[in-house]
């Protein structure tokens, strides 16, 4: 049953997307995109995908918005120069034709999707018992498709190495991002002092309930990473220089423990990333615990950006 709420959300979503494509200034487009990210969380709730809704609220509503808005604000002053560069009419017409064609083809695909839809829900529920985990999405992420999760953690690390490798020679090993000047007694510092501890508790809560209810390490790690960044922006904490040994150990520890448990599975359960059934739940929780700090560090450092400050003596 479609409610007016659904139609309202869909229209708003489309309107904001059109705005990001047609707005005159980059900053205005980015502001529209932040609103768009917040709205997507509502859509996921309507589609009964609550784990996804939590991820979208944390990443789409928080981290991506902050990343884009600070980049847009930093490039604000030279925007006029870029605005003079315009795409010609023939290209515009071709672009309209191409995007309309793609949208139409995809709409037809949506309308002719097979009914009843093929589903892996039954096998997941049947085999979920063996993992000891109550949330089917967590069971898929850490047992049935654990290889995806492992490779994802590694993709995140590679992205971080990519961001770091853009550093100029003199800043290599230094602190990421522009130097933060903040008043440690200002309003922002006050907000960070109150909000960050609450956010930490909420982050661990979302992480912990992930075993049985919507939630999990990605969502929890995103919340905790945001609180870390809040403390950095308020001048209460400093981004560590990327050369620090503890930082690098922390970054690889999660995936390494994951791989080690996976390799142990080849001996004890006969396949890479297979768990012996009686120990499935403790092993899954061990992997989640190991991945959480790594994810917090990677997400926080991805947002902090390329090292730009010179090494202090």
């Amino acid at each position, binding site marked *: 049953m479609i409610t007016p709420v659904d139609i309202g959300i869909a229209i708003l979503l489309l309107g904001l997307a059109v705005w990001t494509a047609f707005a005159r200034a980059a900053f205005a487009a980015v502001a529209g995109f932040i609103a768009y990210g917040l709205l997507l969380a509502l859509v996921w709730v309507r589609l009964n995908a609550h784990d996804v809704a939590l991820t979208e609220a944390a990443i789409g509503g928080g981290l991506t*918005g902050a990343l884009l808005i600070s980049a847009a604000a930093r490039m604000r002053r030279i925007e006029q120069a870029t605005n003079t560069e315009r795409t010609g009419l023939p290209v515009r017409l071709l672009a309209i034709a191409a995007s309309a064609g793609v949208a139409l083809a995809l709409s037809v695909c949506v309308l002719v999707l097979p009914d009843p839809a093929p589903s892996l829900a039954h096998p997941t529920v049947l085999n979920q018992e063996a993992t000891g985990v109550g949330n089917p999405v967590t069971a898929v992420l850490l047992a049935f498709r654990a290889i995806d999760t492992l490779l994802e953690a590694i993709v995140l690390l590679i992205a971080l190495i990519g961001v770091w490798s853009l550093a100029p020679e003199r800043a290599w090993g230094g602190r990421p991002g522009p130097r933060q000047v903040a008043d440690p007694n200002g309003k922002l510092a006050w907000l960070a002092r109150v909000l960050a501890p609450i956010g930490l508790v909420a982050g661990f809560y979302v992480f912990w309930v992930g075993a049985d209810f919507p939630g999990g390490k990605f969502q929890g790690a995103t919340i905790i990473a945001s609180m870390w960044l809040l403390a950095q922006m308020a001048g209460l904490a400093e981004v560590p220089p990327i050369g620090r040994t503890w930082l690098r150990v922390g970054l690889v520890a999660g995936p390494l423990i994951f791989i080690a448990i996976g390799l142990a599975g080849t001996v004890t359960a006969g396949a890479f990333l297979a768990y012996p059934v009686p120990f499935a739940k403790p092993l899954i929780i061990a992997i989640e615990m190991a991945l959480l700090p790594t994810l917090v560090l990677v997400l926080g450092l991805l947002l902090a950006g390329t090292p730009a400050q010179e090494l202090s003596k």
Partner: protein
Amino acid sequence: MREFLIGACGFVLATVILGLIRILRGPADADRMMATLLLGTGGIATLLLLGAAIGERAAVDVALTLALLAAFAAIAFTRAAPRDDA
């Protein structure tokens, strides 16, 4: 009760949609940021009402996450906004 909650949810969403006209009109960057703050608060109210209407408890957790992070982009904006006097 369910119909009332869905209706209230739709109403709040409609006011938020109206408020987003500020993103279109600006004129200052701060006005655009404020419109996203409006969507944060309104989105939380919509989620809570929707969650109560369809009896979905996880919607409250999504609202909690939004409450923690909706202001995050605005904070990043105030930190990165160009300082004309500096």
